[in-house]
């Protein structure tokens, strides 16, 4: 476990801040998965992005939304 890893109670608190209350039996598994994802994604901090904008695109005309999972 690295210094930046989340403990299970920290994962629960962060999730709650995101509006996702986690049952106690979820804390450890979510913390471990979140730490793994974090370790993978953090590699991008090595990059010098210069002026590169995000690739996210949208059309200024807008479009209607479709709801319901």
């Amino acid at each position, binding site marked *: 476990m690295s210094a930046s890893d989340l403990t299970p109670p920290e994962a629960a608190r962060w*999730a709650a801040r995101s509006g996702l209350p*986690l049952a106690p039996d979820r804390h450890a598994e979510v913390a471990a998965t979140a730490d793994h*994802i974090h370790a993978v994604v953090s*590699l991008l901090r090595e990059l010098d992005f210069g002026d590169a904008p995000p690739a996210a695109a949208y059309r200024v005309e807008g479009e209607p939304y479709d709801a319901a*999972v």
Partner: protein
Amino acid sequence: MQPYELTVAEAAEAVRTRTVSPVELVNSALERIARVQPRLRAFTAVTADRARATARQAETELAEGIHRGPLHGIPAGLKDLIDVAGLPTTASSRVRNGHRAQTDSTVAARLASAGTALVGKTHTHEFAYGLTTPQTVNAWHPERVAGGSSGGSAVAVAAGAAAFALGTDTGGSIRVPAALNGVVGLKPTYGLVPRHGVTSLAWSLDHVGPLTRTVEDAALVLAALVGHEPRDPASTPAPAVDYRPGPGTDLTGLRVGVPGNYYFDHVDPEVEAAVRRAIGRLEELGARLVDVEIPMTRYIRATQWGLMVPEATAYHERTLREVPDLYGTDVRVLLEAGELLSAGDYLRAQRARTLMRQAWQDMLEAVDLIAAPTVPLTAVNVGRTSVTWGDGSVESVPEAYVRLSAPANLTGVPSLSVPVGLDAAGLPIGMQLMGRPFGEAALLRAGHAYERTGTALGPPPEPAA
């Protein structure tokens, strides 16, 4: 030969010349489904009455001289993330219990307009968030994974239960199961095929495309799907291109990039050998092989995760809070953990994609397409979780399956997976051809030429009665 065994092109010709009727085609496919579905479980629902009604209508129209084109009366399956009015879109998830689509997705409407007969909805890894499709069995071996997430579509097409099917692809979900089941899979250029009415996994990476038994069939289906759809913000106009490849196999002048890094690292030796043989076949057909170096490979996985994880979590925000217990365990924890990724991480991934897309554009100036393995290993045994490579490194099975296909999702370039043989265990091997944005025609031409040299795998083995 039974009607269900016909390719789309063969069936279209048979319908056009009135040697086979749409009703015969659809009945044959439905009989085939009845035979293989208990064993393969490719479908979430079989829409027999609907298919028969469409076939009868097609027959009436053809008798009146109305011919809607090569898909008229052709039996097809749709991945069960794709809305069809009046049918549930289950996403192979209990979360969708009671769901019923109000309207057709754009692709379902376009296929209906082309006269396609929908024989059923096909299984997906739950909400497309995985690479195995555990409900479905590999068409070539009962103890091997189907691949995913469009596993049901690939297995249905391989088994002859549909002449073609549609799938979706966010990190490889059309091409991975296509490779593992010995069929053709096309992930088109980002935005070319509209996604309106298709359940999303990650908006900025999602694509819809065909799974077929031949490259020519992929071209026929693609042509029916393209065209601008204002309800999909990424949708682009259809290029003025005839996708159907010509009969010739001469590839003189085609520059085929062969990666010197990444795509042949940590690849099963049998897979590598089969793909290199297939590349050699392209060279024999006149293509010129060019060494290429894949840029920014260190950041592919990080960028894919940095985009997909938070986007998927965002899509499921409400249901994850309302009915978390209805998700499968593997999907649920990914969605929950996705809540803990920061906006900074997501933006870094978006900016990394900007750099990657530019670097790929530069690389693709020197070649017309790139040839590489689709997946680094063939279909693994159900339940196997990891693979150990020759250097002792260990990789999870889903990570291995997505590793070589994800770059085309990040960069948006088209990628076509074609079967290139079997390994010693009798399992299919796939090669992917990646091209420039909107360069589908070049991929289809090369894939078709390769196929015309007699590389078809034929149907999967039937179990002993």
